[in-house]
């Protein structure tokens, strides 16, 4: 669910203007092929190479400005801060190129940030190529997110802001989409803590996934984009409203501008009404053919 299509279209339309991406590093991990590509002004992380085309860009970093969020979806993730503007503890599930944790740390250097990433090779690549530095209050846990969250439930750990960014277009970790998992995530949020999830905006999966989030959180703000990404903003408490998010913009926009975040553009994608089939079957640990639904 990365805006690959747009990039491909641009690079096809403007062959003379933009250098085609050059692969500068590859690493084969337990889970995937990791590629680092270089375009004229940025490095990008992607997870697979198929017949010469680079698939599913995960994350990009501008060479001149490491803190700038390149992808629109990653800027939209920052919508969570609008209703949780001063998080003291944050949990990020899925590292990628590390752009989101880097921005959160730059904004809140005194906050605890836990990052969970299943693939140790992704952590190495983020450190080697994407200026990602763990340490101090930013901790990286190499673990399956489901296991991490379940353990956190047992230990009674709580976070003010949880960001779920563990999905890419190729294969969905289905155990991170179920009602049971979302209930676990909800129970590691403090009262009125916020969950931001980067998920899917198309296919039969959209209906079931939306219905599942709605069932667990009672509703959510739906930032739905046309490029395949959809950002869910939910809360452990009364569901947030678009108006509440908008109310946070004035205070936050000045501090987020340097990361490339334009909250007006982010919130323009908010859908005022549910647009999924309310009766769609919920995803559960017993029934979650997410990867099949994705293809429909």
């Amino acid at each position, binding site marked *: 669910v990365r805006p690959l299509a747009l990039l491909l279209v641009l690079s096809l339309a403007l062959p003379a203007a933009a250098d085609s991406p050059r692969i500068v590093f590859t690493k084969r991990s337990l889970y995937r092929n990791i590629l680092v590509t270089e375009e004229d002004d940025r490095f990008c992380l992607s997870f697979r190479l198929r017949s010469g085309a680079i698939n599913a860009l995960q994350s990009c970093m501008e060479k001149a400005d490491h803190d700038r969020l390149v992808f629109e979806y990653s800027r939209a993730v920052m919508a969570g801060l609008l209703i949780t503007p001063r998080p003291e503890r944050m949990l990020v599930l899925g590292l990628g190129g590390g752009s989101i944790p880097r921005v959160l740390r730059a904004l809140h250097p005194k906050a605890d940030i836990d990052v969970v990433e299943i693939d140790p090779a992704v952590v190495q690549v983020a450190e080697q190529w994407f200026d990602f530095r763990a340490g101090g209050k930013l901790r990286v846990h190499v673990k399956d997110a*489901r296991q991490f969250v379940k353990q956190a439930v047992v230990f009674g750990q709580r976070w003010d802001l949880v960001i779920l960014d563990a999905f890419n277009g190729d294969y969905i970790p289905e155990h991170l989409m179920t009602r049971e998992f979302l209930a676990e995530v909800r129970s590691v949020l403090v009262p009125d803590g916020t969950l931001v999830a980067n998920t899917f905006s198309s296919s039969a999966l959209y209906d079931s996934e939306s219905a599942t989030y709605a069932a667990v959180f009672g509703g959510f703000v739906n930032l739905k984009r046309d490029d395949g990404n959809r950002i869910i903003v939910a809360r452990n408490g009364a569901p947030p409203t678009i108006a509440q998010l908008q109310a946070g913009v004035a205070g936050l926009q000045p501090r987020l501008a340097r990361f490339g975040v334009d909250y007006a553009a982010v919130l323009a994608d908010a859908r005022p009404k549910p647009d999924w089939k309310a009766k769609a079957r919920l995803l559960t640990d*017993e029934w979650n053919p997410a990867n099949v639904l994705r293809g429909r």
Partner: protein
Amino acid sequence: MYSALVFLLVFTGGFSVMSIEVLAGRVLAPYFGGSVYVWGSVITIFMLALSIGYLLGGRLSLRAPSLARLGAIFLVCAASVVPLLFAAEPFMEWVFLRIDDPRYGSLLASTALFFLPTLLMGIISPYAVRLLVRDPHTSGETAGFLYFVSTAGSALGVLLTSFYFVLWWEVSQVLLGLGLALAACGVLALAWRGAREAA
């Protein structure tokens, strides 16, 4: 007819064991995740249990082999699936609270949940070879065809389970269905003997 029934039993056994292996990943994921360790644990335990099942099946076939006894083995196989329906959650919770390392946690859980049913299903093939072999000259051919049927059943079990069953039914519904299929095979094998004796 006798051979056809034995082949049906072997096919169902092969189908069930791999269908359960696919579901094992689903059963363990909520507690131990979907990392490579979890699949490593599942495959290790299934291979180990099958190997011991083969050994045991060969030994059992030495003493008064009969279709009825094979039927009884199927009933035991069916019974061994029942704990997966009721005890899996509490047991995984127990392991989860005690073992932090995802490798050993999932290894212990897959041992406790899947070792016994897989071992029992491993008994089926070598035992069935004994029931079908009439002539040492053709024993290799008989065994070869039997493994063909069993492994083709396994292939179909993986395919149907991963492509369709998980879409149509809940995990525990599929497990229940497999248990019922194994029990039906057991009853069929026992009834066959009854029918023969009555004739």
